[in-house]
């Protein structure tokens, strides 16, 4: 009886290992996740800097003077919408529908562009009224943290356009699917970071 069980498990085992060898992309997803975690540490340090310097106004403007929460709410909704539209792109990708994937990716990119555009508009407005990073410790920390996030989104958009070109040229091949899944993690991760930004920087800032 024991012998029979052993033989059974021995015949099963090679199939299992074979399966592992067929999936090198598993390593990519874990590696990309570890990259995201290291990115998370960058943001953590910038949040800590903001936590330390966030109240040092140097007799300059405070968050309540500067921030327009309605604009921030619209900006937040742009990023939230882009998260679910990217999710829809992934669902289309799993069904193997190229046109649907491209459509939802394009919509995601437009929401991303709207987000970056609104952020640049906000920065331009702040800059024009003299609230530059040089004004106070609070503003230095604010610009560093928020602009680092904005730069990530900008590069995410460039990556997204690149992948749309890749998908249009080669279709939904396994390599492109893997790339789209990496970008999916990147995009949703940036949304998670933004939760911290709007909670800590904007809402707690305006609260005083």
């Amino acid at each position: 009886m024991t012998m029979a069980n052993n033989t059974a498990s021995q015949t099963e085992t090679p199939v299992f290992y074979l399966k592992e060898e067929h999936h090198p992309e598993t390593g990519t997803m874990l590696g990309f996740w570890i990259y995201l975690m290291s990115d998370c540490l960058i943001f953590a340090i910038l949040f800590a800097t903001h936590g330390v310097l966030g109240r040092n106004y140097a007799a300059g403007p405070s968050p309540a003077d500067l921030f327009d929460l309605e604009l921030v709410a619209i900006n937040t909704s742009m990023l939230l919408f882009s998260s679910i539209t990217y999710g829809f792109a992934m669902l289309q990708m799993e069904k193997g529908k190229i046109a649907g994937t491209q459509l939802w990716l394009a919509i995601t990119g437009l929401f991303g562009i709207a987000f970056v555009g609104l952020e640049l508009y906000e920065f331009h407005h702040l800059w024009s009224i003299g609230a530059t990073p040089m004004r106070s410790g609070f503003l230095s920390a604010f610009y560093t943290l928020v602009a680092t996030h904005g730069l990530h989104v900008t590069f995410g958009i460039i990556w997204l356009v690149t992948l749309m070109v890749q998908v249009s040229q080669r279709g939904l091949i396994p390599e492109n699917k893997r790339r789209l899944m990496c970008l999916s993690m990147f995009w949703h991760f940036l949304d998670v970071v933004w939760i911290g930004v709007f909670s800590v920087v904007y809402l707690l800032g305006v609260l005083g």
Partner: protein
Amino acid sequence: MSAHSHAHDDHHGDGASHGTFKSYLIGFILSVILTAIPFWLVMDGVLDSKVATALWIMGLGVVQIVVHMIYFLHMNTKSEGGWNMLALIFTIVIVAIAIAGSLWVMYHLNTNMMPQMDHEMIKSFG
């Protein structure tokens, strides 16, 4: 059975789990609610206490991060054989040490550098 699961894996391409239309929608609706409440609390000044409002903002933020992790990033204890979760826990520990440690150290530094303390010391010496 084994052939079936193999084909299934080939189709999905990796060991991580994927969302469905329903799970994305649930995640989105929860996120909208969890975003709207803190904005509403601050913009309409619903609560009298600033401390209570701040605690609500932080609490709802943490809940929303968990919602995003589960419904959008598909985090669970099984994906990548648990290594995803392990890396996440490690990162959370480091982040907590970095942020809490910075605030703690700098708060004490500020307190001990307060001008009125110098003033008192001058008086006591004077």
